[in-house]
């Protein structure tokens, strides 16, 4: 298999991770919360979709239930965070651990096969171009729905909650409710991505979500860099996130192709994300040093 042949498959997987990254974007960028629930809710989406389809459900209701299950995961994290006052990071970790057990119980074992030849799935690895079209449509519909939602009064209040909580409350916005809602929305999208991944890869595995948050952050960061010179609006930003997922996955496939030890991939991803997350900090320290030096020069 050469790299070019692998490209359509990498792009298809990239779209799936891009959809997941949109979920991460909602919490990380819009709500200003670092939500680690996604490592678990991604697998919940996979497991629910796989189990329902194995039990004879049609793919559409199976995906809908997967999405709702993901929203429940976010709801739980939201309740930990707002009602119980636990810091967001810790709330996500707690839910993630809970979901490890829940996901095992949903599947009854550590993994569940969902072979494309036996089930009427929407996307399959064997038909990459077909999968690409379907996934692109999913991206378009999700971006359009989110564009609409965040333009409504309710959506604007959710954005205000993430932007300036004190101001939001002074304007009569129930910030706790909005955070819970945003977490549920985000994890619903993540679980939907999981449901798509289970169909595409023909399986659901308890380990598939490990590091999902890092991939999501990577996609968000790459997306930001991609669109930095374009006129900024919500559609452009979300499209950037999807493309970020695609680029991440192409790089990932390339690294595998050149024969790098795949055991090291997660470490490399995390290090790359760490460096990108550090850039604002470096910029600030570098910048402030320079101005201090300039002041000295003027004096």
């Amino acid at each position, binding site marked *: 298999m050469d790299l070019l042949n692998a490209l359509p498959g990498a792009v298809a997987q990239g779209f799936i991770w891009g959809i997941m990254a949109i979920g991460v974007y909602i919490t990380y960028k819009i709500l200003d919360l670092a939500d680690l629930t996604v490592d678990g809710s991604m697998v919940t989406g996979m497991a629910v979709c796989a189990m329902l389809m194995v039990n004879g459900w049609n793919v559409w209701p199976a995906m809908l239930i997967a999405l709702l299950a993901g929203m429940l995961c976010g709801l739980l994290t939201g309740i930990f965070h707002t009602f119980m006052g636990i810091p967001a990071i810790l709330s996500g970790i707690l839910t993630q651990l809970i979901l490890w057990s829940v996901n095992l119980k949903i599947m009854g074992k550590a993994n569940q096969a969902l072979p494309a030849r036996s089930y009427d799935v929407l996307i399959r690895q064997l038909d990459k171009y077909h999968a690409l079209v379907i996934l692109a449509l999913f991206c378009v519909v999700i971006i359009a729905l989110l564009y609409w939602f965040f333009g409504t009064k309710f959506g*604007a*209040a959710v954005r205000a909650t993430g*932007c300036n909580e004190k*101001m939001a409350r002074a*304007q*009569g916005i129930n910030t706790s409710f909005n955070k819970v809602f945003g977490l549920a929305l985000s994890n619903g999208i993540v679980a939907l991505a999981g449901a798509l991944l289970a169909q595409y890869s023909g399986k659901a595995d308890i380990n598939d979500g490990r590091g999902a948050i890092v991939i999501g952050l990577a996609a968000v960061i790459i997306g930001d860099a991609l669109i930095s010179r374009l006129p900024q609006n919500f559609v452009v930003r979300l499209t950037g996130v999807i493309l970020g997922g695609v680029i991440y996955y192409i790089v990932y496939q390339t690294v595998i192709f050149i024969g790098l030890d795949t055991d090291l991939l997660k470490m490399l991803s995390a290090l790359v994300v760490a460096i990108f997350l550090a850039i604002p900090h470096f910029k600030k320290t570098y910048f402030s040093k320079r101005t201090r030096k300039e002041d000295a020069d003027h004096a």
Partner: protein
Amino acid sequence: MLELKNVTKIFNPNTVNEKLALDRLSLTLEDGDFVTVIGGNGAGKSTMLNAIAGTYPIDGGKIFINGREISKLPEHKRAKFIGRVFQDPMTGTAADMWIEENMSLAMNRGKRRGLGWAITDADRQLYKELLQRLDLGLEDRLSTKVGLLSGGQRQAITLLMASMNNPELLLLDEHTAALDPKTAAKVLSITREIIEESKLTTLMITHNMQDAINNGNRLIMMNAGTIILDVRGEEKKKLTVEKLLETFHKISGSSFANDRALLS
């Protein structure tokens, strides 16, 4: 209109840092009262405003607005009756959102926020007219991020937002203190115009005694969590900064060496 009955607030109770910030404070405002609030640093002025707005629960007493008890309502529900401007210009607006988005957030204060578009063309027209009155050239910059504006511009917008839909009570906490003198004067004159035009019942904390004397129909002075002076009408018009300092010294019994700078 606004009624505070024996309101008490204790920070960090039962610790070495325990602080009685409001000490059985009682205050009644009539409809349309414009009250200026002065007092030394730590007197409890901000705590009084935050207690009314519901930033934190109080430890004793009750608060009423137009006969409704609000002291048990969460902050976001009280916002229906209350408009606020804070000392820090960054606090009152959402920096990453546009001017028109910020104004629409305020426009919907106290209303159900459903799935209708946040901003319609009619809204935009209204926001333009409101901004025009500020005379800061902001009416043509509806889709500018508020974070790109100066502190004075942000405070002026926050003031517009706080006064939208004629709130029953306007709370201003040293909202000109972070601005340069010229901008502060401009924002203060906008404040006066808005309050007079809509006859808003207002509590305005200021660190500037002359401003406190020149504005409003009533002046209160706070010390150690209570009101130590309450002057209104004709009597207020006759006040001078010197007289206020003297009164403060007599009533509070504390040396004014430090507070003088803070008050005047």
